């Protein structure tokens, strides 16, 4: 009987408190919504600190609200309070580990902290996670963002691996392929970049961005003739493209001055070597070389300065092409390479850069 009475009282108490908490809960929710909206407004107005305060106040009245927590965590992360943002996000992630937005936010947080493994882990979670709306686009955006983050973190092998997977699963849309090709190029995977641009050009022949990209990629691959082809088209399509125009100049200079190119006569080869040698001498006059240094940076004693070596070589250059002087061309190019490297800080013209490339690439540029 006593227990029955106590149970009855407890049930009545539960009913009364439930009613009370429900009513109070509604008020809290309304208050929280109001504070949250204020916070969003302040965030949009560029007042993140005020926004954080209002998000926080909103959360104090609606502890479990996913959106409020996510907004607060993002605001905290964006203002550099990564520790607190992480606590919120990890708590959200523990509640719904499959949520794309939470995983993406965590990925961004760890990217900000330069924690590569965690960054990749949570971006992958976001890419394969659940998105309430427009999942394909959100996943694609997360993937592109991951590659971008990896490039910013200078994690080139990881970025290249992501790009290879991404390019294989992309729908065939020129703008996406172009974007991937650009990213390949940034990841210094020039063969794939060139292929990507070429795929874009198959469907859109005159795309100036693809032409420029293909030219740059070919240039990086030392395929100067191919580069010259694309860059010429790119400059023709977009005369404002200064970068392509400059690269094209270098390409043309390389092609015109290459002393090792196939199909040129011996006299032409000698002429080109002499011309290159003279240009290097002029550079040396304009930019005095540093004293010879060891690989550790110490000044080496007993090493002949470049100026003396250049003068010495000039006297020997008269014998270029003669029998018994077959190695002289290489010696000349070695000296040119050293001069160009020593005076690289003065190498500003396309001609200088072409010289450097020619000296580096003794086997002959692409024909």
């Amino acid at each position, binding site marked *: 009987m006593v227990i029955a009475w*106590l149970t009855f009282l*407890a049930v009545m108490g539960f009913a009364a*408190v439930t009613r009370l908490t429900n009513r*109070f809960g509604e008020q809290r929710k309304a*208050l929280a919504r109001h*504070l949250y909206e204020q916070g969003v407004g302040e965030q949009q107005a560029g007042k993140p600190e005020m926004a954080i305060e209002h998000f926080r106040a909103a959360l*104090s009245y609606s502890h479990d609200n996913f959106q409020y927590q996510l907004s607060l965590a993002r605001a905290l992360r964006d203002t550099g309070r990564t*520790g*607190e943002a992480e606590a919120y996000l990890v*708590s959200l992630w523990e509640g719904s580990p499959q949520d794309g937005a939470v995983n993406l936010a965590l990925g961004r947080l760890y990217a900000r902290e330069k924690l590569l493994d965690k960054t990749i882990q949570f971006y992958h979670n976001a890419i394969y996670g659940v998105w309430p709306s427009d999942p394909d686009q959100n996943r694609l955006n997360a993937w592109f963002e991951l590659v971008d983050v990896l490039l910013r973190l200078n994690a080139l092998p990881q970025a290249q691996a992501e790009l290879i997977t991404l390019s294989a699963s992309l729908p065939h849309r020129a703008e996406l392929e172009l974007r991937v090709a650009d990213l390949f190029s940034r990841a210094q995977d020039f063969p794939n970049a060139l292929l990507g641009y070429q795929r874009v050009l198959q469907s859109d022949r005159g795309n100036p961005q693809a032409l420029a990209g293909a030219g740059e990629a070919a240039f990086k691959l030392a395929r100067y003739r191919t580069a010259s082809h694309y860059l010429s088209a790119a400059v023709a399509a977009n005369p404002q493209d200064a970068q392509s125009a400059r690269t094209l100049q270098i390409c043309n200079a390389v092609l015109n001055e290459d002393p090792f190119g196939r199909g040129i006569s011996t006299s032409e080869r000698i002429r080109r070597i002499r011309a290159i040698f003279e240009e290097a001498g002029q550079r040396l006059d304009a930019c005095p070389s540093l004293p010879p240094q060891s690989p550790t940076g110490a000044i080496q004693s007993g090493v002949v300065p470049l100026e003396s070596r250049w003068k010495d070589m000039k006297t020997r250059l008269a014998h270029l092409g003669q029998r018994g002087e077959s190695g002289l061309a290489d010696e000349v190019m070695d000296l040119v390479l050293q001069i160009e490297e020593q005076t690289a800080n003065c190498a500003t013209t396309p001609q200088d850069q072409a010289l450097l490339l020619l000296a580096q690439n003794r086997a002959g540029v692409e024909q």
Partner: protein
Amino acid sequence: MNLFSASPQAGPHAPASPTPPVRKKMAAFPGTTLSEERFFLVLAVFIGVFAGLAVVCFRLSIEWTSIALLGPSPEPHTLRVLLAPALVGLLIAVLVIHVFPQVRGSGVNQTKAALYIFNGYIPIRTAIGKFITAALAIGSGHSLGPEDPSLQIGASLAWALGRRMNFSREKVRLLAPVGAAAGLAAAFNAPISAVLFVIEEVIGRWSVGILGSVVLSAISSVVVVRWFLGAQPLFRIPPLTVVRPAELVAYAVLGIVGGLAAVIFAKAIGFLRPRLRALPPSTLYVQPAIAGLIIGLIGYLGAPQIMGAGYQFMDQAMHDQFAWQMLAILAGLKILATTLSFVTGTPGGMFAPTLFIGAMLGGAVGGVERHFYPHLTGTTGTYALVGMGVLFAGFLRAPMTSVFMVLEVSGDYSIIVPVILANAFAYVISRSLQPIPIFDLLTRQDGLELPSLEEQREETILRVEDAMRPPPIPVLNAADPIQQANQQIEHASGNVFLVRLSPAGWNSVTRETIKRFASEGKLEMSLGSLLPPQRLPYLHPDHPLEMALRYVYETPLVPVLSRANFLKLEGVVSSQDVMAKYRVRPSENGAETM
């Protein structure tokens, strides 16, 4: 002093019984089919449920009051922040003086006093008054917390539920701590800490009967609170760093600083409280208002964080929201604000402010240490969390509770070593600089003399080994003939001799008895066959000396036996030995003097 003793023990030291003890059949409790013991456990669950419901309402009331008086997000430089605590302070003073005179203070001492003086009685009017006045005070920004009032409300509800149930006096006394544990557990959302605190600070004794009912009530109240308010903990604990052993020095420093802060806090309260109470009675009307005005001014000038319980700001401190300078300022201001609120008699608890001060101080100390030693890996959150435990140990002087509270709040066992270390430092420093714990100090200021559980803990216990002396020689055997026994005692001093029985047990015989047997011509008969069939009670050297008092008046010599071998006699103890030991008091330097 122990109010919860069970019936006198019949342990191994009692005379051995030839038959196993018969278990007494428990009568059904009136109105139920359960025994009193079991019904009390059931009632403990109901106490927990009702305490949980009350605490839910209490927390909602505080929040509602806070929104109404300070606004949904209190900000500095607003008039309501400046004025609300002062105006509410006036109202509270009137209520306390004219309507609810028993609601001053935190509630822990009142519960303890009820337990030891009034058989656990706390009027329900006090609970109602505490509910209203504490909600007003905390909601308006007075620097107090809801835990201690919840404890008292729970204890009062427990009494209200159990008073008409015809429980034995022992059970009636137990109602208050059971309710107190439920109230505290619900307020803290931490049942283990609540149980430990009540056992450590209120009851002071462990036993299965007490523990069962206290745990049941605490758990049921927490379930109720989580049902209504959600299961989220008080704080979002940031990822904690597991420290390298060398970094423990940093936590030891935190323990020292925390111990000193706890002493300052306790001394400030101990100094100001009697002086304010000694002022003319008319000033009692304005004291809470003045405290409120000063607190409001602090909030108005830029530190509204110190107003109210401040849990959300502890949470922020743990997440690096404040620079260490700000944390240190907040800790100092909170000590000031809480001292003012408390000494003016504003109803409210000290748990939350203690945690607040600890969190801020911990964060500040951690910040300073990392400034000078950047390689320290502990985060601000780690230091803040440890700091909470430090203040709890140093100020409230509940060392076990302080450790478990941090573990329960953090849910991370890896932090236990720094917590124990820092808490130990804080506790030792606080004890040496402030010998009387804060709750005992407050009790004595109120003119009461309740048992100090810390003093009891630290009291030197006299044991049997301190009073026993070597056994009288010879020790006789029950199988010895009277003639042999007579020869053995011929040249021995003393008048009483122990007799070893076969196969086990002890008896005693006097010189006169043996002489009488000899004169009666029973020389060939064995001593055992002539002695009455009884066995002496016995003791072990580690037994408390007070246990010997139960037996030394029944028999002239009580044998003290080895625990490993009951036939091995370690010594004997008589009533004269016990009395002589009690007359000797240990002196300051440890030497014993008469």
